[in-house]
């Protein structure tokens, strides 16, 4: 579990320290305040550790390996032209410093890089062990339709897609989890399958399908909202999101109607209490209110939820954080909704009571 991140001079962030909740972390902010960058930063660090454990011959993390792989991962996930491009721009040279603290301090890491850095970060503190948990990153777009052959094409060619797409496609293609854990998976999957009215199946031909009572529908013909749910369902079914792990989800609400958002809110909370540390970035007042409603009930008594409000200023983004959405400053979507009421009343709306 990630306890805390300290950021200095990353993209829009000047200096910020974020303390995360064990279960759910909700990042709120207008466009351009760095929500996605935050998710990508955390994801990149976790993904490097997991990948290196699989590929490296070294049983323990080494500086050289981290220096190169972390730099490469950050560039591929942020899709910047070089590593130095994600340092916050000011006049002259600048350094970006990042520190991550984990519940288990053996995973703690600190590194930095400068505006002129191309392919290496400087490791200040190296983790004592590799991570054995694959983090999952769900981008705003669904990936089930592009899945067939995507990983192979991505590996073989230069594509402008972020590496998170490739990584998540790899997870989507995982084998279904069998055995003892199946019961737990069924519990998490049931509400999603009910919402999609079917189950997601990966055919031997490499394409996804939605199976239900009326037959088998190829995934491109399924509504986009269901495909997004399908991604989450698939990650649960393959055990990628089970018991321990990390889920980063950028704007879960994108392309979903309110009925589905309601289900997604519950699934996110259920996952987070099942042992997955969840990070979401959102604009949606509807989703935030769903969380509010669910959290005020008794089902999620001890859940550790943190909210982060990102606010853009000329000297960098400021982060306000707290245990409730009331503590993180103005919410743009709420302000805009009220401002729209101002304008609407300004039209002199009809009044049949007078």
């Amino acid at each position: 579990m990630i306890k805390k991140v300290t950021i200095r001079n990353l993209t829009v962030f000047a200096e910020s320290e974020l303390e995360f909740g064990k279960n759910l972390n909700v990042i709120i902010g207008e466009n351009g305040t760095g929500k996605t960058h935050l998710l990508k930063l955390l994801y990149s660090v976790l993904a490097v550790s997991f990948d290196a454990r699989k590929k490296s011959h070294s049983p323990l993390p080494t500086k050289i390996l981290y220096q190169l792989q972390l730099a490469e991962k950050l560039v591929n996930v942020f899709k910047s032209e070089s590593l130095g491009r994600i340092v916050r721009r000011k006049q002259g040279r600048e350094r970006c410093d990042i520190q991550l603290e984990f519940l288990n301090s053996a995973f703690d890491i600190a590194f930095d890089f400068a505006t002129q850095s191309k392919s290496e970060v400087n490791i200040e503190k190296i983790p004592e062990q590799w991570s054995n948990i694959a983090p999952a990153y769900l981008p705003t777009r669904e990936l089930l339709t592009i899945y067939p052959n995507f990983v192979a094409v991505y590996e073989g060619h230069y594509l402008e897609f972020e590496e998170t797409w490739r990584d998540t496609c790899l997870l989507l293609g995982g084998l279904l989890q069998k055995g003892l854990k199946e019961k737990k998976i069924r519990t998490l999957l049931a509400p999603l399958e009910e919402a999609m009215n079917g189950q997601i199946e990966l055919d031997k031909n490499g394409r996804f399908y939605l199976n239900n009572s009326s037959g088998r529908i190829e995934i491109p013909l399924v509504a986009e909202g269901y495909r997004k749910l399908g991604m989450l369902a698939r990650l649960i079914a393959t055990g990628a999101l089970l018991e321990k792990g990390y889920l980063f989800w950028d704007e879960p609400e994108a392309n979903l109607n309110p009925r589905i958002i309601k289900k997604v809110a519950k699934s996110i909370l259920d996952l987070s209490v099942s042992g997955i540390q969840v990070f979401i970035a959102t604009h949606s007042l509807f989703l935030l209110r769903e969380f509010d409603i669910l959290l005020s009930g008794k089902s999620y008594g001890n859940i550790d939820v943190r909210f982060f409000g990102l606010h853009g200023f000329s000297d960098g983004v400021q982060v306000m954080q707290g245990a409730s959405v009331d503590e993180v400053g103005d919410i743009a979507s709420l302000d805009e909704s009220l401002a729209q009421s101002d304008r609407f009343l300004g039209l002199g709306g009809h009044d049949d009571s007078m």
Partner: protein
Amino acid sequence: MNHWHSLTDFLGLEVMMIQCEIDGLIFSFPVTWKITKYDDWAFYRNQFSRMWNEIKAVDLIAFDLSSTLWMIEVKDYRKNPRTKPTSLPYEVAKKVFDTLAAMLPAKVNASDLEEKEMAEKVACAQKIRIVLHLEQPHQDSKKFRRAIDPADVQQQIRKLLHPVDAHPIVVEKSDMRNLAWSVK
């Protein structure tokens, strides 16, 4: 011909309620409650609000048997759409803030005995609840069933008044939630 508006009227039970009128709306509270129109208080009108301009007051202060202090503000957009929806939560928050600030001085300095006693009760409150009674004109538009989404206003008030009441509510005649009083 005599029309009984309801069973309550028929049985003459209205005498069992405490009624008060705010902006043409009739509020009926259980008799066991203590109700006061705070902005009619002599202490508020003659002393507290004269300290400087812009000191405001909530419309009603009510006290139930479990020592909960209810601070009730009434806004009727059918009659008086003066306040912009964006400013409404701030206005309510300011009224609550100003009213709370007046209670200790009223307890100590009010010359009217009833005002003094009410302020003493407020000082011993076990819980504070904020209620905005928001009436709106009916809208024909499908996009805006109500011009102002009560949930937006409620959320903004909650953010502003979190340390006072983490669960303020916005109600209207046709949806009073589980509140103990009614409005006509």
